[in-house]
């Protein structure tokens, strides 16, 4: 069953195209890994889903959650989804918690929308139990702690606990380990891997790291300069990447090259609003043909469950 469907979703900031006609689905209980480099539009997409875009953003197309177009409902109804149907874990755990309140109070507040009738004590009990489930030792003491008293890894666990307490249909995690050390990242990824078996909702896991996504996601979507350039089941994407960009990105991340030479993708991502007539990756593509400069390739079925936006995939 489809939980989330994007239909021709486009986003412009002050007339500059940031997301271009994205169509994508996420099934219930599945994990979608959304991969892209800086400027690809992946965080903008998360904010669009949460209705947290800045005022100069213009959205077009449809966002269907359980079949309801979120762009067609009232702002009040839309806001009511946050903390009930939708929850998000942000990139920087240092700034996502309120420094003035103890953890317990913040865990209680996060559940108010979900459980408006429940008392403070009951919500605190649920908070304590969830802290324990996300691997926080001595949860009782942590409920009384302020954010600055916790390490970065512990704060990210608190934020994940907070999101899970909302029992959302969709959990959006936007680069949840980028601000953490590699050892702590491995711990937090271990927690997400456990969620795969214990969380009934769907997860949109956004990352610049193919390695993280490869181990977690059921499906992977690759964004480049605001275009969806490839989607595939995770195993297929890494075994048989169809788009030259996906192939190059995998080579960069595994770092396999000649001697000390590290693979790179020459050039840079086109600036937002460049409006290339052809494929957005063509200027950097090693397999570029004249057609690639002239016409933008549509996202099409290329077999084995893969869709790729490449004339020659």
């Amino acid at each position, binding site marked *: 069953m489809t939980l989330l469907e994007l239909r021709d979703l486009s986003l412009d900031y002050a007339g500059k195209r940031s997301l271009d006609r994205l169509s994508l689905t996420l099934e219930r209980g599945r994990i979608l890994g959304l991969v892209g*480099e*800086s400027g690809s539009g992946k965080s903008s997409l998360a904010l669009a889903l949460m209705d947290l875009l800045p005022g100069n953003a213009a959205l077009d197309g449809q966002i269907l959650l359980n079949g309801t177009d979120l762009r067609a409902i009232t702002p009040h109804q839309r806001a009511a989804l946050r903390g009930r149907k939708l929850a998000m874990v942000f990139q920087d755990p240092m700034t996502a918690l309120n420094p003035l309140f103890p953890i317990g109070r913040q865990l209680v507040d996060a559940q108010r929308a979900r459980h408006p009738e429940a008392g403070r004590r009951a919500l605190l009990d649920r908070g304590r139990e969830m802290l324990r489930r996300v691997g926080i030792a001595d949860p009782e003491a942590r409920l009384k702690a302020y954010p600055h008293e916790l*390490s970065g*890894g*512990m704060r990210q666990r608190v934020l994940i606990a907070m999101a899970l307490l909302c029992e959302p249909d969709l959990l959006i995690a936007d680069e949840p380990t980028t601000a953490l*050390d*590699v*050892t*702590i*990242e*491995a*711990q937090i*990824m*271990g927690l997400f891997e456990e969620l795969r078996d214990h969380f009934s909702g769907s997860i949109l896991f956004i990352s*610049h*790291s*193919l*390695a*993280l996504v*490869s*181990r977690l996601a059921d499906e992977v979507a690759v964004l480049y300069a605001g275009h969806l350039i490839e989607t595939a089941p*995770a*195993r297929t*994407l*890494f*075994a048989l990447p169809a788009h030259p960009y996906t192939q*190059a*990105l*995998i080579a*960069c*991340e*595994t*770092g396999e*090259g000649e001697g*000390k*030479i*590290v*693979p*790179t*993708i*020459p050039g*840079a991502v086109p600036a937002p609003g460049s409006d290339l007539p052809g494929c957005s990756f063509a200027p950097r593509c090693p397999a570029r043909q004249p057609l690639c400069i002239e016409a933008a390739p549509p996202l099409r079925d290329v077999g084995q469950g893969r869709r790729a936006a490449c004339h020659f995939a």
Partner: protein
Amino acid sequence: MSALLEARDVIVRFARMVAVDRVSIALAAGETLGLAGESGSGKTTLAKALIGLLPYQGQVEIEGMSLDRLDRAGQLRLRRRVQLVAQDAVSSLSPRFTVRRLIEEPLRIHGLGGLERAAAQLDALGLGPALLDRYPHELSGGQAKRVALARALILDPILIVADEPTAGLDVSVQGEILNILSALQAERGLALLLVSHNLTVIRRVTDRLAILYLGRLVETGPTRFLFERPAHPYTAALIAAAPVIDAERVHPRSAPAGDLPSPFHPPEGCRFHPRCPYAQARCRMESPELVPAGEGRMVACHFPLG
């Protein structure tokens, strides 16, 4: 192989906190040494002390000259021969200078001619002359890194200390910086001290590796051997924690339990023992010394892995 840089028992303190604790390390001409560890391990602090940018106790010699015995002229010469590329390239560049002025600045400071070489230096790093009249805020992260590198290279150094040269860069452009550094090394016999938490980068470009934990060296040796057969449990833990593409999910990615302890109150005995899966009673009591372990390695562990 004579050492270009040799440090013995270097200690760096910040007030009551010992950030670097009796570290001895050597770097040969033309060699790339990696310095790895978690944040708070003291890698940047050590790197800065080694080139005289932080006060330290112990001995550091560069080209046989003790750093603390240099006169003013000697210090100026050292600062020309040894260059730091700071982690945050954008904030290391004055926002009020154009790229041209930024690259010429080191030449002016050292009273050297050849200001016209700025454009050639940029070109050598794959940046066009159009960039010369731009300001730092107009540069991408990768461009800013290359401008910072150009400023270091224009003085023709013998040693470059690169602090997290790939941090904050997209994976598709990280390689450009690393390839430039490797090529220069081959051309000019440049020595490189590469500070990084990114083990993929370390494995790719360094000849030797030193692993720091809470200010102490826990293992040093040829990079290849450390990755193939880590002797210290912390080295093994860092390697196991590094993210690798694994869609078949056959390689378990494990992490040492818990967080890095506070450097203000480091654990007694071996500093890694509270997180070490192999810790024994002795590890809690007695701090292990760094001792030779064959294959050109040194390990500080009572029970090194086989």
